[in-house]
């Protein structure tokens, strides 16, 4: 069952309900980048007393683990266009470097914009926040353009 992609009309509403439940239970603004931010900020202080956002991030990791254990697949193996393009030991070094740099762009960019796909894309958009609507249109546009550029080059 888990090896079949969940229907979009089930997956979407479940993610939307997560946003609503966060708000209903403790007036929380669901956002994964907030979780990373909390974890980094606490670790820098030498503390592991994370607030709910840090625990939300940990919950996602646990969710991924449960999914793999329950038969959804570990998801190991190739990694999209990167492992399809770069081969050998040198290729692996290139992939690692590309993912590291992409990660920095993701973390720094999402913090600058006040949220990522979840914080701005789901939660902010659902709050009808003009800033989040602009952010969402921008990151979708940028990601689409980058994907087409990569497609043209490789």
């Amino acid at each position: 069952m888990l090896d079949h992609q969940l229907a979009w009309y089930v997956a979407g509403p479940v993610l939307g309900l997560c946003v609503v439940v966060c708000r209903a239970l403790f007036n929380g603004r669901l956002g994964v980048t907030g979780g990373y931010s909390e974890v980094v900020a606490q670790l820098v202080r030498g503390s592991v007393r994370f607030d709910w956002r840090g625990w939300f991030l940990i919950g996602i990791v646990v969710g991924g683990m449960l999914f793999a254990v329950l038969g959804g697949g570990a998801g190991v193996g190739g990694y999209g266009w990167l492992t399809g393009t770069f081969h050998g030991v040198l290729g692996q070094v290139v992939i690692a470097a590309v993912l590291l740099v992409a990660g920095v762009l993701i973390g720094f960019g999402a913090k600058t914009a006040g949220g990522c796909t979840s914080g701005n894309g789901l939660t902010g958009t659902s709050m009808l926040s003009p800033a989040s609507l602009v952010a969402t249109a921008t990151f979708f546009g940028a990601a689409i353009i980058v994907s087409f550029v990569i497609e043209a080059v490789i």
Partner: protein
Amino acid sequence: MRSRLAGTLIGVVFGITLCWSGMSNPTVIREALLFERAYLFLMFASAVLVAVIGLQTLRRRRARALLTGAPLTWTRDQPGRRHVTGSALFGLGWGIADACPGPIAAQIGQGVPWALFTIAGVLAGVYLFLRQGAAESEPAADATPEAMTVAYRPLLAPRA
């Protein structure tokens, strides 16, 4: 304490759903961004629709948070330059790695070795941001110096 437990459980549901919907699979993300499959956009739209209806309902009922008793208040930001520049950088990284922060965490749980590099980058990027802008604390999108906060009015407000 109860908020932390609830946050963890919501995270577990969120993480399983991200994996089950294929969002932790970079090939699925890439197909979506190249407009080869509509799945991601349909899922995203239905998620936003459900959340809009849910949040509006909470608002209209003037509900209080079930665990903390806090009044359910939130503000909306006006777009600023940082929303465009930050999201452009974020989108660039997303389109290259074909994973955003949630799915990256889910990949770690699933045991995707490559995700170790992506998550290391994300943590470094967040650290760089926090270091340069210590004044700008969380929640960034809820209250910022340059953001003009506007009062939230429900779209579906009952007529007085």
